[in-house]
C-alpha cells in the first residue's frame, strides 16, 4: 500500500517537498545563527552563546544553539507596525512575494538523483519540468518584486531609493548570469537540471572545470541576485537607513530576512547543480554510491548529504565574503556589471558557440582554452585601462584656490 503510494511521483514529490521545506526553513534559521557566529569569529568575538534549550541546565548553554528559536519568538511578539502613509495592500503583500518567490525556487533542484521504489525509479526532485532552468531564472527574477514593491509601498524616500537600486542592480546582473548559464546550457545541450547533473556525473567533469570563467561570473552575480554584500545596495544601512525594509517591523521584516536566506540556499543549490556536479561527490573519479546508476536509498541519502554539504559551503562562503569586503559604490556596481561581467560572459558565449559550430563544445581542452583566452583578454584590458572597474577612483580635478577665495579675502 505504502509502496504503491510512493510509486506515485506526485505523492513522492509531496513528501520530498515537506522534507526539503522543513530542512530549508531549519537551515534558514540556523543560517542566521551561523551568520552571527561567523561575523563574531572574523571580528575576534565569541558570538551568541547564551541561549540554550532548557532552563533546566543553568550552566550549560548548548553553545547558544537555541538562539534562532529565541529570535523567532522575538519577531513573533514584536509590534507589527503599518505606518499611516503606506500603500497598505502592497505593503502587506510585498514581503510575502519576496519570501514565496525564494521558497518555490527549490522545487526543481535535483537533490539526489533517482530512487528505486520497488522497481520503479522515482525522481528525488519535487518537480522535473522540461523547462527547469528557465523556471529557476524566472522565479529568481520575480523575487525582486518583493523588494521593489516594498520600497515603493513604504512611501519613504529611503525605501524608494533602496527598491529602485535593487531593481536596477538585479536587472543589470541578470544579464551576465543568464549569459553564463547559457554557456552551460549550450555546452551540455540540456535545460533540465536533472540532465545537467547527470551529464556532469557521467563524465566526471564538472562544469566549473569546463567553464571556470562562466562559473566565476555566475558566482559573482549570485551575490547581486541575493542582495548580499558586497552588492546589498538595496539595504545600505549607512546611507539608506534600512533601504527597502526601513518601514517594516516584526514578522514582515522577518519574512524579508527569511526570503534573503532562502534565496541564498536555493541560489547555492542551483550553482552547485550547474557548476559543481550537483550530488556528485568528487570530480574526475567515479565513487561507488555516487554513480548515476546507483538508485538505492542509502545512495540517495548520501547524494542528498553531498548536495547539502555543497550548499552549506556556499552559505559559509557568502558569509565569509560579507564580513570581508566593503560594499561597492553604486557606480562601481554598475560599471562592474556592464563593463566587466557582461563583456566577459559574452566572450564565454562566443567561445561556446564557436565550439558548437566545429562540434568541439564538449571537449575539455577547447572550453578551457576558450575560457583562458577570455580571462586573459579581460585581465589585460582591465590592467591597461586608465579607470579601473572598481577600486580607487581617479583624482578629482583640484580647483585653483584663487578662483574660490577671490581678491576680497585679505590674508
Amino acid at each position, binding site marked *: 500500500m505504502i509502496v504503491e503510494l510512493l510509486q506515485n511521483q506526485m505523492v513522492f514529490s509531496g513528501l520530498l517537498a515537506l522534507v526539503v521545506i522543513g530542512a530549508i526553513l531549519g537551515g534558514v534559521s540556523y543560517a542566521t545563527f551561523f551568520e552571527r557566529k*561567523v561575523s563574531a*569569529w*572574523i*571580528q*575576534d*568575538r*565569541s558570538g551568541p*552563546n547564551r541561549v540554550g534549550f532548557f532552563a533546566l541546565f543553568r550552566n550549560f548553554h548548548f553553545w547558544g544553539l537555541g538562539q534562532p528559536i529565541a529570535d523567532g519568538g522575538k519577531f513573533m511578539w514584536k509590534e507589527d507596525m503599518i505606518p499611516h502613509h503606506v500603500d497598505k495592500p502592497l505593503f502587506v503583500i510585498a514581503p510575502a512575494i519576496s519570501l514565496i518567490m525564494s521558497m518555490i525556487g527549490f522545487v526543481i533542484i535535483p537533490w539526489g538523483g533517482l530512487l528505486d521504489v520497488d522497481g520503479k525509479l522515482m525522481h528525488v526532485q519535487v518537480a522535473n519540468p522540461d523547462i527547469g532552468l528557465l523556471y529557476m531564472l524566472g522565479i529568481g527574477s520575480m523575487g525582486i518584486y518583493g523588494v521593489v514593491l516594498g520600497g515603493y509601498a513604504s512611501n519613504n524616500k529611503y525605501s524608494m531609493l533602496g527598491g529602485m537600486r535593487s531593481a536596477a542592480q538585479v536587472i543589470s546582473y541578470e544579464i551576465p548570469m543568464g549569459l553564463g548559464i547559457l554557456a552551460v546550457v549550450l555546452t551540455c545541450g540540456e535545460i533540465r537540471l536533472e540532465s545537467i547533473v547527470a551529464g556532469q556525473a557521467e563524465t566526471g567533469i564538472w562544469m566549473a572545470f569546463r567553464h571556470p570563467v562562466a562559473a566565476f561570473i555566475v558566482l559573482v552575480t549570485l551575490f547581486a541576485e541575493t542582495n548580499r554584500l558586497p552588492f546589498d545596495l538595496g539595504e545600505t544601512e549607512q546611507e539608506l537607513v534600512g533601504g527597502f525594509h526601513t518601514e517594516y517591523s516584526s514578522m514582515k521584516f522577518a519574512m524579508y530576512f527569511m526570503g534573503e536566506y532562502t534565496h541564498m540556499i536555493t541560489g547555492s543549490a542551483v550553482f552547485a547543480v550547474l557548476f559543481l556536479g550537483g550530488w556528485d561527490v568528487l570530480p574526475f573519479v567515479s565513487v561507488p554510491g555516487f554513480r548515476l546508476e546507483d538508485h538505492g536509498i542509502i545512495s540517495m541519502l548520501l547524494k542528498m548529504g553531498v548536495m547539502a554539504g555543497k550548499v552549506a559551503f556556499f552559505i559559509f562562503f557568502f558569509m*565569509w*565574503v560579507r*564580513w*570581508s*569586503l566593503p560594499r561597492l559604490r553604486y557606480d562601481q556596481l554598475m560599471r562592474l556589471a556592464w563593463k566587466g561581467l557582461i563583456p566577459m560572459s559574452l566572450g564565454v558565449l562566443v567561445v561556446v558557440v564557436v565550439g558548437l559550430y566545429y562540434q568541439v563544445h564538449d571537449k575539455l581542452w577547447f572550453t578551457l582554452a576558450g575560457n583562458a583566452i577570455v580571462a586573459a583578454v579581460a*585581465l589585460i584590458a*582591465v*590592467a*591597461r*585601462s586608465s579607470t*579601473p*572597474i*572598481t*577600486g*580607487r577612483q581617479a*583624482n578629482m580635478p*583640484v580647483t*585653483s*584656490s*584663487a578662483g574660490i*577665495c577671490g581678491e576680497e*579675502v*585679505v*590674508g
Partner: protein
Amino acid sequence: MIEDKDIIQLHPPKLSSADKLYVSQIAAGMKVTLKHLLAKPCRSLQYPEQKREQRVDNYRGVHRLNRDPKGRVACVACFMCQTACPANCITIVGGEAPWDDREKYPVSFEIDELRCIYCGMCEYACPVDAIELTPIYEPVGRSREEMIYDKDKLLQIFDETVGTKKRKNPKITGYELTGDRSAQGEGTARIQQAEKENENK
C-alpha cells in the same frame, strides 16, 4: 590669501595593474579574515562565569562604613560626606556618642545606592576615613527601598570586604583610636609636619 604654490597636493599612490584587477586585493582581504576565523582569538570575557581581575585599590564601587579597631563604627557624624555628595544620596542622623573618645556618632547612616554616582567625593571628604568605596560593582535589589543601604548594611559590607581591601588609616586627623598610627601613609606624615611648623610659628 593662499597662493597656488602654497597648496600641497596629495595624490594617492598610483594603482598597479594587480590593484586594478581588484581580484587579488579581494583574495588578500579574504585571507586575512579567514586567518581570524580559524584562529578565533576571542577577546570577550564570558561575564558571569569569568570576571575581570579586580582593581581593589582604586575601583569605585559600593560604599562601606569602616569599623575602628574596637569594632565600633568609625564615623563621627561630621556631615562632611553628606555636604560633599553631588548626588545628595547620603542621609546622616547624628547623635551624642555613647563612647568617651568622641562627641558624636551616626544614629542612622543611609546611602541611596541608586542615586549615587560613585564619584568617591565622600571618601575624599571624610576626615576620619570612615566611609570608603569598595570594589563591589554588582549590587542588586528587588526594590528601590532595598537599594537604600543603612548603617548595618554598610558595616556588613565592611566586614565582607575588609579581607580583600584593607582599611585605610586616617590621614588627615591624628585620630588615635580609629587606627594604627604606625602604619600611617605619606600624606599623614606631611600633614603632621605642617602642623608642627604651624606650632613653631
